[in-house]
């Protein structure tokens, strides 16, 4: 009966209640959105690389190296020589080494030059290895293996021939037209930047840069014939897997003091936590702002309920006369606040899901962020519960006023 009364009274005042619900739904949308995106970003970043002990690149900031080598965000500052890679990868502490060569693109998707080691040793998430959904890994100089998203978005099939561009912008004027690549494999989706990457051999990268401006010159060269000239002179970075984790710091120091070339070795986990430290202030600010927005929506709701008590004086009197105890009035107002918040949460969460769904592609293409559209996590459930409790606490004031009024009221017509 109480629930029915609360619901019907809300429906009877639908105009003002709808506005209050909208204000609250938007505030919950912001609150949930900030919380969800910051959590998902962390997860997406942490899932991108696993099992890699050290990342080595030209001397730069550790964050910069991490961002461009793993997340393909930003640009490499400098290349490192092939000799350095050779020297370090033959170190007895090293189990495996994956060279990475960046700098080219295809229709906005980055091209990664690497070796077959990449498919053997690179892992993401909880030690998942890369898997091919179709075809095989590259063997030939002009073979390319596509990330799942690249294949899906551009509609490429096995055997298709594609042209890579120099530089990383989406509309590049310098196309490596003379060296079309053949799609030989497509990877399964990983939810990491790998999905937006085209993988070719280091020789392939080298080949498109060998006199690529004098187009036509190499057109008739057979791949076999050019392979031996295609020993790379430099690469962007490389990843190392060690035989024993215990030697990680020693090798890191060795690499950082490498005499032939200024190099930087980083531990991905440590660099990531540095990233989080930088982000914390921003995150907290955003969260604080969204909490303030929510509080203001709660205050709006309380003001609405408070003024409704004034309008409903005769209703309260009537309820008292037919035997309603003052506590009934208190619970009635609290219930109204509960329903307003509940509807707002459903609306806000729905709005967020729709928003994320439509923004997903944009976030992936421009920020390499994989945001899960499923916002129904335990974390968010707790957040929504907190929201509900907070708004009911805020509704205490009008509820108490209605309680007090109904106690002290006298029939005065």
């Amino acid at each position, binding site marked *: *009966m109480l629930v*029915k*009364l609360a619901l*019907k*009274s809300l*429906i*009877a005042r639908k105009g003002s209640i709808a506005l209050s619900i909208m204000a609250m739904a938007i505030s919950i949308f912001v609150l949930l959105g900030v919380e969800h995106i910051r959590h998902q970003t962390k997860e997406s970043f942490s899932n991108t690389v696993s099992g890699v002990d050290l990342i080595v690149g030209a001397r730069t900031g550790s964050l910069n190296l991490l961002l461009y080598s793993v997340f393909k965000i930003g640009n490499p500052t400098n290349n490192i020589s092939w000799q350095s890679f050779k020297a370090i990868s033959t170190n007895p502490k090293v189990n495996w080494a994956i060279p990475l060569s960046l700098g080219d693109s295809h229709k906005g998707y980055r091209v990664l030059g690497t070796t077959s080691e990449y498919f053997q040793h690179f892992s993401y998430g909880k030690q998942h290895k890369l898997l091919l959904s179709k075809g095989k890994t590259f063997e030939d100089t002009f073979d390319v293996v596509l990330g799942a998203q690249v294949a899906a978005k551009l509609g490429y099939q096995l055997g298709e021939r594609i042209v890579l561009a120099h530089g990383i912008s989406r509309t590049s004027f310098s196309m490596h037209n003379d060296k079309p690549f053949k799609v030989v494999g497509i990877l399964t989706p990983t939810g990491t930047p790998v999905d937006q990457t085209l993988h070719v051999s280091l020789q392939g990268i080298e080949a498109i840069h060998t006199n690529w401006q004098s187009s036509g010159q190499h057109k008739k060269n057979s791949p076999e014939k050019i392979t031996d000239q295609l020993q790379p002179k430099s690469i962007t970075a490389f990843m190392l897997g060690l035989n024993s984790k215990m030697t990680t710091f020693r090798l890191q120091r060795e690499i950082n003091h490498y005499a032939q070339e200024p190099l930087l070795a980083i531990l991905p986990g440590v660099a990531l936590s540095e990233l989080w430290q930088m982000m914390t202030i921003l995150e907290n600010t955003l969260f604080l702002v969204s909490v303030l927005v929510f509080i203001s929506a709660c205050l709006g709701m309380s003001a609405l309920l408070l003024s409704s008590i004034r309008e409903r004086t*005769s*209703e309260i*009197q*009537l*309820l*008292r*006369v*037919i*035997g*309603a*105890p003052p506590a*009934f009035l208190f619970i009635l107002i609290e219930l109204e606040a509960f329903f307003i918040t509940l509807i707002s949460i459903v609306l806000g969460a729905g709005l967020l899901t729709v928003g994320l769904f439509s923004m997903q592609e944009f976030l992936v293409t421009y920020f390499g962020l994989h945001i899960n559209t499923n916002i129904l996590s335990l974390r968010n459930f707790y957040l929504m519960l907190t929201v509900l409790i907070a708004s009911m606490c805020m509704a205490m004031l009008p509820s108490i006023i209605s309680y007090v009024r109904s*106690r002290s*009221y*006298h*029939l*005065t*017509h």
Partner: protein
Amino acid sequence: MVIQLSNIRFSYPNHKDTPILNIPSWSMAEGEHCFIHGPSGNGKSTLLNMLSGILLPNEGVVCVLDQHLNNLTSRQRNKFRADNIGYVFQQFNLIPYLDALENIQLASYFSSSLTKSEVSEEMSTLLTSLNIPESDWNKPVRTLSIGQQQRIAIARALINTPKLLIADEPTSALDNINRDSFMTLLMSTVEKNNITLLFVSHDMSLSQYFNRVESLSELNQVECSNAS
């Protein structure tokens, strides 16, 4: 005795020196239909609030249906009111956004006089006997005419089978024709259910329906008559 008042004195806490009520002795027997004539501002509302247990006197004893209201806790008084006293006001007798059935259910919610199935049976009996067409039972009461609303108010007041019905100017919002049919219905319903009726109005012409007529100014012996 249904109502027994003795040595009642009352003034509001913030106006201590202006007494509202001073009733040495007054009582009503079971089955009586009493008309109290009095303009508003004579302590009428205060008296009715006291009889229903919303207010307690500063001095004296209020005894309703052999129950000393002074001795009950406020929770017990709420329950007592819901179970035993029906109340019909001048206006705003019903929650406007609920329909007739819901309004009556709400009244029965606070009382334990009837079981759920008895309530729905009793509701139809009451509404039918009060000439409310069944098609109007599920409409929000604000869409119904005032005459209909006042008749539904009787049904609401009677759902918990009270022994005492208090009517506070229930006809003042009605026109003459509606007023007469309302009075006829009220009196026959009260008669049929053997309910003691206390009816307060400033309209002397209604006294013809009653066997006992009293004036509030005789009843209430306060000197100044500027009560709120």
